């Protein structure tokens, strides 16, 4: 694992994204720089991501902050800022 745990968070976040998604993607290829929009999430379905993040990480993220994120890496940053 990398020093700040980013890789571990990414692996767990990939699972969350996959389980919340409507569209199928190559989830193993999802990286920090992957745009959220390219995975088919919108302002509604991103709420499911928030819900599943809370289930997986035990962290409640602020929806207003999450809807501003543009990449997977920005969600990881939010998670880490909140203790992941």
């Amino acid at each position, binding site marked *: 694992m990398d020093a700040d745990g980013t890789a571990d968070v990414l692996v767990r976040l990939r699972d969350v994204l996959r389980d919340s*998604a*409507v*569209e*199928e993607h190559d989830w193993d290829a999802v990286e920090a720089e992957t745009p959220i929009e390219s995975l088919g999430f919108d302002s509604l379905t991103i*709420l*499911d991501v*928030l819900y599943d993040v809370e289930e997986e990480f035990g962290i409640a993220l602020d929806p207003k902050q999450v809807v501003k994120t543009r990449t997977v890496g920005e969600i990881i940053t939010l998670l880490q800022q909140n203790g992941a």
Partner: protein
Amino acid sequence: MAESRRVAVTGLGVSCAIGTDVESFSASLFAGRGGIARLRSLDTSEMKVGIGGEVEPDFVASGLKRLRRRPTDRAVDLGIVTAAQALEDAGLIDGAPPYEPQPVAVILGTAVGAAESNTTLQQRFAERGVRGLRPTSVPRVMDNAISGGISIHFRLTGANFVVISACTSATNAMGTAYRMVRHGYADTVLTGGADGFFDPFYYGVWNNLGVMSKNPDPARACRPFDAGRDGCVLGEGAGMLVFESWERARGRGARIRGEILGYGESSDASHITSPSAEGQAAAMRAALTSAGIEPADLGAVNAHGTATLANDVCESGSICAVLGDAAEEAPVSANKSYFGHTLGASGAIESIAALLGIEQGRLPSNLNLENPDPECRVRLVGGVPEPLERPFVMKNSFGFGGSNGVLVLGLGE
């Protein structure tokens, strides 16, 4: 009333226990191969009944992968994957997304709707209260999730709604679609139905209703019109059809696979579950009038034929009342012995069976009809396929709530 146009069927898609495309469905149907078995996807150890007609395990997963979708709900997923077949058969899409928007309406039947999603959320609510409900619970459980999901996925911009009338749902939906095309409100409609309900809650409520066969031999359990019948067998599946104005279908060189000639409907207005011969007969007469044909023109009747004690006697009586002497010349076939009662999809899957029979000039055998019930005084197809003498078939569907829907189907030429 607005203009009156001929309504062509230009696309077919089907998934049920005897096939996951039109070719395999047709092959099983005319070879007399049924698909009822012990349920694999559901623990029925605490239930009185444990059989049904399941779609082969990999069908939905591989179909969704091809469409680049994640699973959402069993009925929705069955509907979407089967809709792709019909749209491809009609030449309206070609393979995987992205798709261009096109003015096609989506009018589908379902009896149960998003059963899997409902059951999952009920369990989560029971365990965790309101915190167990996902933010997207509303779009997951709403009854029009099937038509909405299909419209969005394939970018079909015509009207999009579901018709819910228990086991008549798909036939009512197809009747509505037929009228929309016939009278010029739509040129093309994707119609039919989907249901997938093999989960503890929905199978459980049917188990407790007491109308399902308790025959220990799954292959012989569903016996429409047989004296030894003891109830229905449930099945999951979807049937999808593309209805199109004759002019548009011809104009674009589409393969016309059949014609919808007429539609009739009625309500028993008597009992929530017991059928009424008068109500059924009224719908059949309305369908024949709509089609402009006489009973003697009919080549066959594709019955609702649930194999419950009540339905088959009642339906036989109503068929005889409507057809009179012509009932002798219109053999009755019932397809539920092959794939079970697919509830809100049944009218669509069985209409596809009827259209394939018209296309091929034959009627499938009545599987498990070994000793016809003397109280069912219709002329029944026997244990082997029969020639279809005249290419006009009446398709009956009757549902709890007293809803009756009847289509008249013909050859696409």
